[in-house]
């Protein structure tokens, strides 16, 4: 059984804890042990922290990498924002000794430990695809989802910047299609599939109306095809679609599921523990 430090972030534990409970259950079922680390904080949120003050962003991210280092584990995230922060910070610090020395000075003054530049960061969808594999996932499916038509939303920081992530082609990827179809469900293509949900970069916080216009554009593209739900791998995109549809007052609303929740359904886990009651857009599937 492989073992990882489970990085919770902020939006998941504090807005959509159903994603957290689902992740814990499905990863256990798939033979991946998740370890809690009470030294983890905010990643910190790249859109706001990195935009405002990159030294702070890098130092707090480095501290999170230190926490995993001390637990002798690599990190697994279930949020593209956390992935963006931690994977990019690791990329910078693991390859640049001078930068690491600079950050280590701040960590030392603050009472943290030296970052040695070895921690690796994984998105859980990457682990499911590479380490677990779709065959093993299909074997766990108790309720086939073959009647469901799913619109996949990748989000931005799962695959981009691709020079750092190096996971899949960001324009025509297949990781999530493979993972969705492993449940029997059908992934439906639609216009501008790789487009942003609108929330990132501090835009949702600063100008929520602008963020919502982008969300609306994507939802309009979804109206052109026939789907049962929107699937994401990021609690922040999840929030933008789930609340966004309510805020827009749309007639046509699509349930929004994180991949962990979809797997929870497919694996036959107790529906009450998937946290759908906490969604603003009803999950009526």
């Amino acid at each position: 059984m492989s073992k990882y430090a489970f990085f919770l972030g902020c939006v998941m534990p504090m807005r959509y804890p159903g994603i957290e409970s689902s992740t814990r259950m499905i990863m256990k079922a798939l033979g991946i042990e998740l370890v809690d680390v009470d030294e983890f904080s905010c990643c910190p949120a790249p859109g706001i922290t990195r935009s405002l003050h990159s030294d702070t962003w890098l130092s707090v991210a480095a501290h999170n990498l230190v926490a995993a280092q001390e637990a002798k584990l690599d990190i697994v995230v279930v949020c593209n924002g956390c992935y963006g922060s931690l994977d990019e910070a690791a990329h910078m610090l693991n390859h640049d000794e001078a930068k690491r020395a600079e950050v280590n000075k701040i960590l030392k003054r603050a009472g943290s430990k030296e970052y040695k530049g070895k921690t690796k960061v994984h998105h859980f969808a990457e682990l499911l695809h590479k380490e677990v594999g779709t065959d093993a996932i299909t074997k766990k499916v108790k309720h086939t989802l073959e009647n469901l038509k799913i619109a996949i939303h990748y989000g931005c920081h799962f695959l981009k910047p691709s020079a750092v992530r190096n996971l899949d082609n960001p324009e025509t990827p297949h990781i999530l299609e493979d993972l969705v179809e492993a449940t029997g469900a059908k992934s439906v293509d639609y216009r501008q599939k790789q487009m942003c949900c609108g929330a990132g970069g501090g835009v949702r916080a600063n100008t929520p109306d602008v963020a919502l216009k982008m969300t609306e554009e994507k939802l309009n593209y979804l109206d052109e095809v026939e789907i049962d739900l929107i699937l994401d791998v990021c609690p922040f995109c999840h929030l933008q679609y789930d609340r966004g549809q309510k805020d827009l007052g749309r007639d046509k609303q699509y349930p929004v599921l994180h991949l962990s929740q979809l797997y929870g359904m497919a694996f036959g886990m107790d529906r009450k523990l998937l946290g759908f009651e906490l969604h603003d857009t009803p999950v009526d599937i």
Partner: protein
Amino acid sequence: MGEATYKPDNKFPREIIERGGTTLLRCFQCGTCTGSCPSGRQTAFRIRKLIRWAQLGIADKVLASEDLWMCTTCYTCQERCPRGVEVTDIVMVMRNMAVEAGHMQAQHIRIGASLAKTAHLLPLKEPMMKARKGLGLSEVPPTVLSNKKNLDIVLNIMKEAGFVKLVQKGGK
């Protein structure tokens, strides 16, 4: 006519380059970035123009620009740029410089201040603690929120890195 009155600040592009925007000068203004920008479809934000202003050293216009904050950092422009300009990374450098020049968005100050207190982006509220319990989770997430000593270290890091002062200053 108005455009001609801007006095180019040659130090500005140099500083962007020194702070990590090393690919700034490669841009030849093809507009692939703006054509790919989801935010530009909804607003007046034209990333191509900001990059041009940056190259020319029109610092004041870049730093005071509201548009600089319309970027969702989706990286589409950066991925598609035929010249390999790291557009999104450059936006981030320019935002840092804008903040230093005193241009900080009100909501970012508010969220930054909250981050400086709890080491998390969002507050943990009572109903959510109940909901967590109902899902079989700990009421308080097992992060620094459940360990005061560990929380203090993160708060110290934000102080030592200069974030706390920045957010306080921004708030004035």
